[in-house]
């Protein structure tokens, strides 16, 4: 498929609804990411960077 075809495909694409597995991927990634950042934040509080 040429680059031109891809561009016209982008302009006229049909919307694909989010599948349950995609919602799970987004939800789990985000939750895990925020959770791990909070854990790191707590660790950062108790073990601050030493110069």
């Amino acid at each position, binding site marked *: 498929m040429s680059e031109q075809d891809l561009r016209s495909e*982008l302009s006229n*694409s049909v919307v*694909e609804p989010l599948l349950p597995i995609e919602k799970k991927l987004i939800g789990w990634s985000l939750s895990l*990411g925020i959770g791990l950042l909070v854990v*790191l934040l707590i660790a950062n509080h108790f073990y601050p*960077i030493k*110069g």
Partner: protein
Amino acid sequence: MSNAALAGELGADNSAEKTAGTCAAPGLSEDWLAVWIGLLVFVLALVGVAGPNLLGWVVSTSVWTDVSGALGPAAKNYAGLGGIGALLVTYVALLVVLSVGAAALKIDVRRFALRFTVVFAIAYASWVVGSYAHFAAVTPSDFKKFGIDWSLRLTNEGGFIFALVAGLIISNFFPRFAEWLKEAIRPELYIKIAIVILGAFIAVTVAGKLSLASSVLLRGIAAIIEAYLIYWSVVYFVARKWFGFSREWAAPLASGISICGVAAAIATGGAIRSRPSVPVLVSSLVVVFAVVEVLILPFVAQTYLSHEPLVAAAWIGLAVKTDGAAVAAGGITEALILAKAAAEGVQYEPGWILGTTAAIKVFIDVFIGVWAFILAYIWTNHINVQKGGEKARVGEIWQRFPKFILGFVLTFLVGFYLASTATPDTLARITPAIGTANAFRVIFFILTFFSIGVLSNFRSLWREGLGKLVAVYVVSLFGFVVWVGLLVSWIFFSGVKPPLVN
């Protein structure tokens, strides 16, 4: 940027090439080539610790008002070469080594050599122009020394911007010339060689400050979490839900914006079995936006984050996409912030800002293969389930692992061991030896900046059909990635300063 031109950029990863269907000549991968060339420079530099300085002839540039005094060899014992002699020797040495590398990559060596000559000439000339005192001088003592009363205060590293702009001019106003140069336009190769060499420089910088260095490295974990789990999921959601992109487009786009640009977009395209042209088109946007970031973010960091140097370093590593642009932007940010601090009477040790940016980027890179495997598993088992179709293989993790990181880790470990166990006398010889290797790192940075410029055709943004792709990139990058990156960098790095020069 054409697909053909982008092929050079994508040449970093053989697996990616196979996936993208570009530049698929069998041979050594650019990743491994970067490891071997970087190690060659490192080993030759180390010989200088115990014996003769084998690399002292490498050219270096000083800030100048009289161009005849701008160039010189890095080591005094090669002073007889003079500036032009050092430049010629450096050019010939790079030409020979990189031509051997080109042969290993199955590239036409004669075509590469001719084009590399032109690339080196323009890129290094841009660097020299950038070192002109009216562009580079920063402190009042510099002004006095050079007898000038104004300067753009871009620092010596402002030459990187000049190299980038030279590449942009060629790409956007002389596209045929840009196309002609493409065999030698290999930003991923150049930056990966630089990163392998950088490992040793960082090691010598942090030796003796293990507590601070290990604390900074541990906080690199936050960058991995942010890039893969938070950025990716939000950008994927925005692309799918708000902009209506198909899964085939949204996944490489999310990886390109969130993780590390071109390599991640290509790896994701392969993982979800997209058509080869999809990640290639996404990658062309990644490169263009990386250039925009390089031209803006270091100056923003200097203006608003000069009192939080490591926040600035981590932010650049998280916000700027593609390895080349991110690490190079880290170099400019370091120069700008050190210069501003110096003007205020604070002398930070060089290497910490660049080292933090590079560490953040390397940490993120390490997990590309793992993330690609996870996506491949989900796509082949739950989204694009095909009876008898190819399933995700654990081997893909290693296949997509950026091998140049092995070189970075090796030079870091060896350099760190040598620097932390050496006697003061030996350490006094190790530091200049690694400094000589670092002069090569600077040259590979220059080549990277110029190459990124040549690959960035801004007219591609106005082409029909790409508007939606550009829109999701702008919304995600400047509406989310940059700000969350700043917030996380601030949380984990605020209040932490690089050591002061004794």
